């Protein structure tokens, strides 16, 4: 079941969520039966600082249309300083992706604590709407390069 | 620099005549340059902001606009607490919302940037340069006079408009009065309200406010109360006898404007300082203090002369004018 690219197209968004805050927030959203679009898939990581920029590039390469990195609010990190590094890394990452022609909205970092279930749902709704508006991401996508060698949009 | 744009306000020419006289004497003595705003209008005081907010912002704004035109780059200084508050409100509103500033500009049909700072007389006389000049000009000491500094409400509140750090116990006037040698006492009604215009339109409800001020001043051993606003001064000075009758009290506390004491300390006579034109007798209290200090100085000078006869005679300071 490869990712289809037609009009009723649904974006695929990958969300790296830190186990102590955002993953807990996502679970709380489930507990309260909040509803949000299906096109976000969560990968659980111990801390948002575990997310290596390499994973983001790999996600875009494998056809993700949007990537989210979510963690605790600065100061609340279970590992004290983890999310400070996240913040710094992903400011640079956003500029790198922009430099490579990927719309910065396709990659976002958000601070969502364990009790902010509504914020998690709203973020998912907002991001998936934004990505849907942007349309499929062809930059970096392996499939795309294989089909027509040119490679630029 | 000692140059200010001056907004006198409606009271200066009528009820606050002693404030005007003593202020002008002191300003002249210390070389303060004041440029009155041409064709200034009434700031609207309590009446305007009781009627509607736009009028309350527009009336003072016209004065500020006139000052920006006639006295560019100068801060505006005003004696009355209500004018100060209303001018400051318009400035605060304009600076905080571009939309309001434009709205006011349309109403007064002048451009109004709200650049000048609004200062009341306590801010003016707390300026280090002005203070230094005042100290130089002091010739008489009012040592022995125990003074309760009364700030009223609009000089220190609301905090977001006046920037006063400690509205419960401000110290600006205390510091100014201490220059004259008088001693300022600690008391608790520094910023309790005097009832302002309610003394006219709701006398029965507002009179107790004045009595409480006198009661606390007396309880803390004040010989005199000093104010910095024409209306506070009038409410206390004009109605002290009435309060004594109404509440069968024997308060004997004259009420001065702080510029009157500055003027006297700088050698002004009754005429220039206006201390003989109070509703409640005030001249004698000042006279006793000056005479006492003068005698003491003479006695000290005599002992000085005895100790080393070569020194020249006692320095007799200017005669206490009638």
């Amino acid at each position, binding site marked *: 079941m490869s990712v289809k690219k037609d009009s009723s197209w649904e974006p695929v968004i990958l969300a790296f969520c830190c186990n102590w805050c955002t993953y807990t927030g996502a679970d709380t959203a489930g507990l309260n039966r909040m509803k949000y679009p299906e096109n976000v898939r969560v990968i659980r990581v111990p801390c948002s600082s575990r997310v290596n920029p390499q994973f983001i590039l790999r996600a875009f390469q494998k056809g993700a249309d949007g990537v989210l990195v979510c963690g605790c609010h600065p100061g609340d990190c279970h590992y004290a300083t983890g999310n400070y590094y996240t913040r710094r890394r992903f400011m640079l990452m956003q500029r790198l992706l922009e430099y490579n022609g990927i719309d910065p909205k396709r990659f976002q970092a958000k601070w969502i604590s364990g009790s902010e279930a509504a914020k998690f749902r709203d973020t998912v709704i907002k991001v998936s709407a934004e990505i849907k508006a942007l349309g499929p991401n062809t930059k970096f996508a392996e499939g795309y390069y294989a089909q027509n060698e040119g490679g630029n949009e | 620099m000692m140059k200010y744009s001056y907004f006198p306000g*409606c*009271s200066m*020419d*009528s*009820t606050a*005549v*002693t404030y005007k006289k003593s202020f002008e004497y002191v300003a002249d003595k210390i070389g303060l340059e004041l440029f009155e705003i041409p*064709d*200034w*209008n*009434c700031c*609207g*005081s*309590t*009446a*305007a*902001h*009781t*009627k*509607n*907010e*736009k*009028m309350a912002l*527009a*009336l003072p704004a*016209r004065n500020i606009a006139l000052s920006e035109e006639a006295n560019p780059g100068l801060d505006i200084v005003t004696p009355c607490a209500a004018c100060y508050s209303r001018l400051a409100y318009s400035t605060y509103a304009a600076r905080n919302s571009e939309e309001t500033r434009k*709205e006011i500009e*349309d*109403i*007064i*049909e002048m451009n109004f940037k709200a650049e000048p700072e609004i200062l009341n007389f306590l801010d003016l006389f707390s300026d280090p340069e002005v203070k230094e000049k005042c100290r130089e000009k002091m010739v008489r000491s009012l040592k022995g006079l125990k003074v309760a500094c009364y700030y009223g*409400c*609009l000089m220190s*509140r*609301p*905090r977001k408009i006046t920037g006063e750090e400690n*509205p*419960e116990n401000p110290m600006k006037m205390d510091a100014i009065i201490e220059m004259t040698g008088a001693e300022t006492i600690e008391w608790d009604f520094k*910023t*309790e*309200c005097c*009832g*302002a*215009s*309610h003394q*006219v*339109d*709701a*006398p*029965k*409800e*507002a009179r*107790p*406010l004045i009595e*409480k001020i006198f009661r606390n001043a007396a309880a803390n051993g004040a010989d005199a109360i000093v104010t910095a606003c024409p209306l506070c001064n009038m409410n206390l000075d*004009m109605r002290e006898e*009435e309060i004594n009758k109404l509440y069968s009290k024997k308060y004997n506390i004259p009420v001065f404007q702080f510029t009157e004491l500055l003027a006297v300390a700088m050698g002004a006579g009754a005429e220039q300082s206006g201390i003989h*034109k*109070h*509703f409640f007798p005030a001249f004698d209290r000042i006279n006793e203090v000056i005479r006492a200090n003068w005698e003491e100085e003479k006695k000290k000078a005599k002992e000085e002369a005895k100790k080393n006869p070569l020194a020249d005679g006692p320095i007799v300071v200017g005669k206490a004018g009638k």
Partner: protein
Amino acid sequence: MDKILNREEGRLLAERIAKEAGVNVRECYQCGKCSAGCPMADSFDLMPRQVIHCLQLGDMEEIFKSKSIWLCASCHTCSERCPHEIDVATLMEKCRIEAQAKGYCGQEDVKLFNDIFTETIRYFGKSQEVILEGAYNVASGHLVQDMENVPKMLKKGILRPEMNTVRDKDAIKKIMEKTEEGGAVK
């Protein structure tokens, strides 16, 4: 008739007044510190705390009928000491303006004095304090009020014939008209 809270029509009006004053009346936990410090509270029929409570309930009628919003001296002691930074003084002022617009007045003399004051500004551009006092005495019927101070006023040189007026009177008239009926600007 019993006070049906959920039917209070004033709720929208109360919300608008609170929003205009930049205050969230929900924050008030009715501690009474404003009433305790209010210099005029002894003569209030509705304590400042109760005015805020009426705003919470949306019971605007109670406020409009009250004397309190007129006797308030807007000295800001309440706003300064409120633990939740509720600007009680501004709320009182907004209620006063709203009450006037709706034709209520709990203390005639105060409204009368302010009206005369604004009229003197409209005509002279500057407030003529002593004339203001005289006109108020006549209009309010307290003819003798403060008359015992006149001799001293003469001695002090306050009662002087010349009138101090603004030269550009139209500017002032225009400001008054524009802001009064909500004229051009709303």
